[in-house]
């Protein structure tokens, strides 16, 4: 859905680094170098960003702004 707040394994906060990671990788930088710069040294935290697929944007197409009772 959206980037998890913390690394599943060690509990380091990773969510605040995702946007920078995404934009720098899109500009053609090496993901490994970007992860090193962001201070994600362990492979558990690195996979959090590397393997994440943001699907919240595809959900937005079905968004409503009405309050649905009982949901």
């Amino acid at each position, binding site marked *: 859905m*959206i980037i998890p707040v913390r690394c599943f394994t*060690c*509990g*380091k906060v990773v969510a*605040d680094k*995702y946007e920078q990671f995404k934009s720098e990788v899109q500009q053609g930088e090496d993901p490994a170098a970007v992860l090193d710069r962001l201070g994600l040294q*362990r492979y558990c935290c690195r996979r959090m960003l590397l393997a994440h697929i943001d699907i*919240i944007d595809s959900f937005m197409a079905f968004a409503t*702004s009405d309050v649905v009772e009982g949901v």
Partner: protein
Amino acid sequence: MEITIINKQDDSIHFLVEDVDVAFANAIRRTMLTKLPAMAIDEVLILENTSVMYDEMIAQRLGLIPIVTDLDSYNLPQDCECEGKGCSLCQCTLTLEVEPEDEEVVVYSRSLTSQDPKIVPASGNIPITKLAPHQRLIIEAYARLGTGAENAKFQPVATVAYKYVPVISVDKSKCNLCEECVKICPKNIMKVDGSTLSTQNTLDCSLCEACVDVCEPGAITIDSKKNAFLFKVESTGSLSPETIVSKTAEILKTRIQAALDYANSLR
């Protein structure tokens, strides 16, 4: 017991402890993980949520946001005068109200407004959810102190780890400078300096012994120092690494004292 700080950054500390045994080193680690209190959002009142994410998902994400903790001005709910009902001495209210106009908006942790200016999210850039035009999110969240024993979100540390202090020795009479060990070492510790094999940054050694396997038996030996440990403490941002270590020592001391007092009362 002797402590040497090797490296200190804003969110982590790396230090060497000497003259302690494994049990004590592990006691420090476990106290940091489970007994040291930190703030986290524990109860969330969702007044309105028309976002694409369920209330539960938003509440869970809010809980995981590390919150800057002031251990002196807040009590653990079980030690508080209000007996855990929630008063200004053990609870802090944070509110969030977002309604985008005509474009999509990402709601960040920095939009949480706190009743106490000292109790704020440790990082303001954590995305909580994304809102489509005219969707609304109105939330009231209550942060309180808790310990890692109760829920991992209260842990002030991401990782605490200790390892043995590596001692690498090379038998120069058996070394033929083939450089196999230099190639195989994942941490680049072995180095050939002219006509001798030397070591660098030995504290980085992970004791994998790949160099021992690749070389003649007995040429390289990797040993560990007795009763010394290298600690790495990484904070989530709720407490500074120094506070984590010093508070842990205090908590461990009172717990050991309590155990001693009990043992003495049996006589």
